[in-house]
């Protein structure tokens, strides 16, 4: 519930609302965009990053919190483990039960491979489940994969790897078709035409949605299908290190049963890392939209085994994280809210930026409004934010539009006393997505033989900035490609003697480079929030 002081401020929003209907704030020029990013985006805060002291990307910048984990000791140090004692022996080992992992497992299974999927929490407890806004694909007549290509490259500031973007946009309609054939309930018109909308940075309306439960609908469908198809799944089972064979190829992983706290060896001909993002590392103290298990484990394990990282110094802050009520601090307000026409307003009820700028630009513009221009709204717990004028959606699309198009948002805010049909939302940027990750090629292969990477822990597709709706897409495009290729590849693979020598080498490298690990071990697996009151953020 808003406080009386906040309700007073909302009156200004209501006053200016009638004049704002149907009037777009001008888009920024390319120069203006560059300037606001340089001055206000967290990626440009120097203290937030440091050069890595070890590994293939030595000398390159990574967020401090991630560098801490990359430069830490293995959990297996001092653990008795016999690599000959193999608990699971499969063709394809998929690590991570989100959308990328499920897609990979399904495709590998379809190729006749024996597939094991292990995941840290439950199957589907993943960022994929939380995606609300939608998934992009150029499948309408006035749109095309080449048009999509240009949008993706522009969104990524032209740093994306062209081969990966090509795969992304050209496979996109196939992915949607695949989902449709599994019975995924996309929003459709009567004759089957997909209802599609804009997202930040799109030039065509190509965002497909399933109400505002798009990720959930995709995830539960894939999960249901994976179980139906007989994919073996082990839940509450984390991978903690990759195992290589004596030729330096991937040969499996060490698993950790979260219940019994035992370590187990899984041997596999090919391994697919699909462990998702890193939001729970809370870079620069930002709150996050990510699920509980988003702790960069895939990056840590892959890097230690010698896989190369790309674009690690670029993080996506979602412009619209909830700043109020405090119980949902940092949680996502789906981009579909601005996609449907809600605009950003400052304390005076004035618009200060075009509502569909790309995420990085919109985030920087909001931080500028609050921190630079001091025109944000302060909450009782000392947070600051700007308004996102959701009632405008009802004016544009008619009464009942929010209930119909945004039921998850309506529900989440109303649980804590805010009716977004009548009152604007208070938002501030939140840590959302890892633009970079382990570098892949168009089949999802890393630079280590037989090691594949798919989903948010892969890097290169989005360059320095991902557009909304392209991540759900990428996890399926590259999850499918990795699953296919890994299954095919596995047919010709003979796994040699397994070793963990790379872990010893990693420890030696830490010592040789004088890294003080200060007792840190990684991967993190679960964040530690014990005795914490509420998350504090970067903003005072």
């Amino acid at each position, binding site marked *: 519930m808003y406080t009386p002081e906040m309700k007073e401020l909302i009156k200004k929003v209501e006053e200016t609302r009638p004049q704002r209907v149907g009037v777009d704030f001008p888009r920024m020029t390319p120069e203006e965009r560059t300037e606001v990013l340089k001055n206000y985006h967290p990626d440009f805060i120097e203290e937030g990053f440091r050069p890595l002291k070890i590994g293939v990307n030595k000398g390159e910048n990574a967020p401090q919190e991630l560098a801490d984990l990359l430069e830490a000791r293995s959990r297996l140090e001092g653990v008795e483990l016999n690599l000959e004692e193999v608990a699971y022996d499969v063709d394809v080992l998929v690590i991570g039960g989100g959308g990328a992992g499920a897609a990979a497992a399904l495709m590998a299974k379809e190729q006749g491979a024996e597939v094991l999927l292990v995941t840290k*929490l*439950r199957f*589907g407890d993943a960022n994929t*489940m939380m995606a609300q806004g939608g998934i992009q694909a150029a*499948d*309408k*007549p006035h749109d*095309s*994969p*080449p048009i999509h290509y*240009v949008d993706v*490259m522009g969104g990524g500031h*032209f740093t994306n790897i*062209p*081969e990966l973007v*090509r795969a992304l946009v*050209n496979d996109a*309609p*196939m992915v949607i078709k695949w989902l*449709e054939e*599994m*019975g*995924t*309930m*996309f929003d*459709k018109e009567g004759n*089957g035409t997909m209802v599609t909308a804009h997202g930040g940075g799109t*030039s065509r*309306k190509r965002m497909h949605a*399933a*109400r505002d*439960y798009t990720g*959930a*609908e995709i995830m*539960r*469908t894939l999960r*249901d*299908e994976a*179980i*139906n198809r007989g994919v073996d799944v082990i839940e*509450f089972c984390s991978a903690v290190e990759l195992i290589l064979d004596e030729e330096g190829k991937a040969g499996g992983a060490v698993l950790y049963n*979260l219940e019994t706290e035992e370590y187990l060896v899984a041997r596999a001909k090919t391994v697919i890392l699909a462990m998702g993002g890193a939001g729970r590392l809370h870079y620069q103290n930002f709150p996050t*939209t990510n*699920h*509980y*298990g988003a702790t960069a484990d895939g990056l840590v394990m892959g890097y230690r085994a010698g896989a190369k990282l790309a674009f690690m110094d670029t993080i996506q802050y979602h412009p619209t994280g909830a700043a109020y009520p405090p*119980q949902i601090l940092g*949680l996502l307000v789906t981009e579909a809210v601005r996609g449907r026409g809600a605009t950003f307003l400052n304390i005076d009820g004035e618009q200060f930026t075009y509502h569909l700028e790309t995420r990085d630009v919109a985030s920087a513009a909001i931080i500028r409004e609050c921190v630079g221009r001091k025109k944000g709204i302060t909450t009782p*717990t000392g947070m600051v934010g700007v308004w996102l004028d959701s009632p405008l959606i009802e004016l544009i699309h008619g009464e009942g539009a929010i209930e119909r198009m945004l039921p*998850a948002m309506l*529900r*989440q805010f109303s*649980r*804590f006393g805010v009716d977004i049909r009548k009152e604007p939302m208070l938002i501030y940027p939140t840590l959302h997505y890892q633009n970079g990750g382990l570098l892949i090629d168009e089949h999802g292969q890393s630079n280590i033989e037989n090691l594949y990477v798919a989903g948010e822990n892969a890097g290169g597709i989005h360059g320095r900035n991902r557009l909304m709706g392209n991540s759900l897409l990428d996890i399926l495009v590259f999850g499918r490609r990795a699953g296919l290729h890994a299954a095919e590849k596995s047919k010709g693979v003979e796994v040699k003697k397994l070793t963990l020598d790379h872990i010893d080498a990693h420890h030696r490298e830490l010592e040789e480079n004088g890294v003080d690990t200060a007792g840190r071990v990684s991967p993190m697996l*679960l964040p*530690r*929030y014990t*005795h914490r*009151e*509420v998350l504090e953020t970067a903003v005072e």
Partner: protein
Amino acid sequence: MAQVEMVDIYLMGKKYSVPESLTIMDAMEFAGYQLKRGCGCRAGFCGACGTVYRIAGDYELYVGLACQTKVEHNMYLAQIPFFPAVKAEYDVDELTPSASSLATYYPEIYRCIGCNSCTNVCPQDLNVMQYVAYAQRGDLERCASESFDCIMCGLCASRCPAHIVQYHVGILARRLYGKHVLPPAPHLQERVEEIKAKKYDADLDELMKKATDELKELYNSREIEK
């Protein structure tokens, strides 16, 4: 900053004093738990955190999602993070969109006694009993629509005297409806065929070769659909 109001809650019977503004999930962590089970998205989307609670002096049992429910004074609570329900295995391609498909895999839907416990406990405020009734009748459209916002937390099944696993019935209905009843998108089919016929390959190859400046030019002069 305002004074923090504290309330007492009981976890596994032990008393802890926690700030009243916290959700049950945050409160458990505040009390010192490192959650392993019963915690997924932390945002009301995954259904990992179903919680049963009672307030001192009230005999009634309440349920909620730990990540979406605020603590209350004298709350006694326990989590049911895993519910051992049966999920049928089927091939949606081979099934017809009918009551009989649902009945084959989940015959217990006809044992519903109309107690409405499922609807009463649903943290998403869905009319669960109603969608089971639609399932019984083979009204897939309504069953799919009514159950759509289900996050599969399992609280409904945990309270059902007829042992119905409502959320699994819901997803089967939705998949049957999505696959066999909703018409496939014609423009999607067309585009897929075009791509298979390599219609865009040349253009994409061309774009891949473009220098950044040329791409920038294209990007900055894009025509934006209204």
